[in-house]
């Protein structure tokens, strides 16, 4: 088990270098001059453009630019954005916000999603099952900006149950509940449906029949035997989803005024600011890799038949 983890961690190094280069290359390929773009519609000052391009090595070939970037990065320097502010500061500000938002969304989708899935899986074909299926279908089919705006208007502004907008920069936990709910709702629907299918299938499995036959109480059969085995596909989904919750929340972030990683990357991409994009995405890649590892390790926990050596 220990060796397996070490091996997996070592594999992350080439993946990290590969992804950072790939992203750097993609931002480079976006074309257009990011410095001229700072002037918007108005004509750019060629002298300003020349001096800034020199400052940020923009006239050098891609590989040289990347070399400057990666050597700085290995020394713990994330570089500076075009306006001279350190990228590390930006990341330090945006990530905690997104992590908090993702945690809330994650908690909601795990607890409610698995709960609903279990309920409908156990009562297949009954009213509760139909309601869960219909409810999740509605959530899946409504675009997130509709869901977000409607929830914000009614639950936030009109009824005042939740706070409608977060304060910029440093949103509080309570301000993140509503965006977390909206953000988690789509995944919640998937989790519920995955759990339902898995539970319904495993209901007919031999080990469940055995457990019931040896006289275990139903509660114990369900939680210890049925649910545990049914969670494997759900855990796979959840592991990958955490990264998506952090980086892919840009629509939700926009509606609820949450200034997180999604918005940071979006703005940096529009400004062609490689150092910010690569820094943020590299951090996300690390999160994905670590989550993946955790998910793989969880398989062994959930299903004793799986072993890592």
């Amino acid at each position: 088990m220990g060796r397996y983890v070490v091996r997996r961690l070592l594999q992350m190094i080439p993946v990290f270098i590969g992804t950072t280069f790939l992203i750097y290359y993609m931002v480079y390929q976006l074309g257009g001059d990011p410095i001229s773009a700072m002037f918007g519609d108005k004509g750019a000052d060629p002298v300003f453009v020349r001096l800034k391009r020199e400052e940020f090595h923009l006239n050098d070939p891609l590989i040289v630019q990347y070399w400057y970037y990666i050597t700085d990065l290995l020394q713990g320097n994330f570089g500076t954005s075009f306006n001279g502010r350190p990228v590390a500061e930006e990341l330090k500000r945006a990530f905690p916000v997104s992590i908090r938002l993702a945690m809330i969304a994650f908690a909601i989708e795990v607890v409610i999603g698995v709960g609903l899935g279990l309920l409908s899986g156990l009562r297949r074909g009954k009213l509760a099952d139909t309601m869960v299926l219909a409810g999740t279908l509605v959530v899946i089919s409504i675009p997130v900006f509709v869901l977000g705006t409607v929830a914000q208007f009614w639950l936030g502004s009109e009824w005042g149950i939740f706070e409608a907008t977060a304060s910029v920069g440093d949103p509080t936990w309570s301000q993140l509940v509503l965006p977390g709910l909206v953000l988690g709702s789509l995944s919640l629907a998937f989790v519920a449906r995955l759990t339902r299918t898995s539970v319904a299938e495993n209901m007919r499995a031999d080990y469940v029949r055995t457990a019931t036959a040896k006289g275990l109480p139903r509660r114990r059969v369900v939680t210890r035997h049925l649910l545990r085995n049914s969670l494997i596909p759900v855990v796979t989904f959840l592991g990958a989803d955490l990264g998506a919750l952090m980086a892919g929340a840009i629509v939700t972030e926009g509606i609820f005024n949450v200034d997180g990683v999604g918005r940071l990357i979006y703005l940096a991409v529009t400004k062609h600011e490689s150092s910010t994009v690569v820094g943020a995405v590299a951090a996300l890649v690390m999160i994905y890799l670590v989550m993946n590892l955790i998910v793989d390790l969880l398989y062994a926990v959930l299903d004793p038949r799986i072993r890592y050596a």
Partner: protein
Amino acid sequence: MRGTTRVKWVVGVAVLGLAATACGSSSDDKKDDKGGGGGSNGLPAGYFSAYSTEPQNPLQPANSNETGGFYPLQLMFRGLYTYDSKTGQPVPAMAESVESTDSINYTVKIKSGWTFHNGEPVTAKSYVDAWNWGALSTNKQINASPWFEKIEGYDAVHPKEGAPTSKELTGLKVVDDKTFTIKLVQAYSSFKASLGYVVYSPLPQEFFKDPAKYGEAPIGNGPFQLDSANGGWNHKKSLTVKKFDKYAGDDKPKSNGVQLQFYTSYDAGYTALRDNKLDVIDQIPTSAIGSFKKDLGERAIEAPQFSIQKIGFPLYDAGWGAPGKEKVRAGLSMAIDRASIVKAIYKGAEQPATDWLAPNIPGYSKDITGELTKYDPVKAKQLVKDGGGIPGGKLTIATNADGPHKEWVTAVCNSINEVIGQGSCEPKLYPEFGVARKDISGKKMTGAYRTGWRGDYPFPDNFLADVYQTGAASNDSGYSSPVFDDLAKRASAASDQTQAIQLWQDAEKQMVKDVPSIPLWYYVTKGGSSTKVSNVQFDPYGNPVWTEVTVK
């Protein structure tokens, strides 16, 4: 049974997550009261909040070309002039007098009694040093060129190639504490009117010790000063300023302070304003344009803007640029029923255009374009026919679909279709602004396009020379008329303003003949305020009149 305990752990994490949210909400509510989030209720007494965005660059007067950086500078600095909040005309602020006999050499006398927020008196040197620093290319000030290039010696401090050969503009000279002289490269009749722009602000000696550090916490001479006790510039969150008690200008603030809050989008800001958590917003998001007057009631604000909406033509295109097609363009202009469109779409707030200049710009006239901007279906049809018909048989008007323009472009096309014949006009939608702009400024258009212009200072050259002179940076249509160019050159160089204005009007008469673009209507600022503030106004440049706002 190793596995069983681990299952508990998985569920445990989920529960813990929920517990954390629950605790968080109670402890964080208190923090919220201290400010940052919720409108004037969370702010110190007499302060109000306003929508803004994070400044893109350090706060130095010549280093902002976006609203986010412009607002803080406007709050904390005052130059020689300021602009009247209603008419937009230059009003002396620090200027005792600015005199010139030839529009090239100016003698500036400044008023005494003005100090910076740190107590240092504002002198002629504060101006000259600031302008020299802003113009120097190695200081990389993003907004230096259009303003300082008019001053003699700019080429030496801001050379196209290589390092600057001088650190000072030869056109600037300190005479004594209260007097300095400016010599321009050539005569600019509009120079005086542009002196209210924030780039021409003075700087204290403190600035030159460490400009980068200063850019984080500027010390100005304006009506407000940075309020470090209440967070100052809290990056990506807010910027708070408080009233400067020793402010020597006439426009003393009527509130105790302002917090600019950096929202992520106008939609989010508008939601906060509707819920009374934000006090002033300077723009209504597209999604709420239709409903904001109903939503906000008396809190909805509209104010005229130095801003015009036009239809531009690719005069570089073989079809549209051909001689005689100006008749077609004039005909199309007369086929547009401006009054009805404005009434239907903007509920009458916008005013139909009768001039390429906005109202209140010196030289603006209600009849200079004559028939060109009057709805006349019969004549319109005749002119289009006389001009040999629309090039390509159909007029397309390009616009970006991500803004609020699609509606009126469709309305304009309907009007043209009714007059000229069905199928003669059609909107062409671009997915986003950036893409449309790229084709327009790259001169790749084959049909008409929507175009707008917002003034920086109140003088005709800002609306005409910058857009229609041959080779001007924003001349997207490729319009080039020797008559216009000659009049424009003479108008720019005129030694007095009345003469300049007369020449600009003559230049416009040439435009009426050539119809390089079709003027449609003048924009109004659409904003809003909360119930906690009153007297919220917007000046013709679309900026809130910061000093006039009162907190209830």
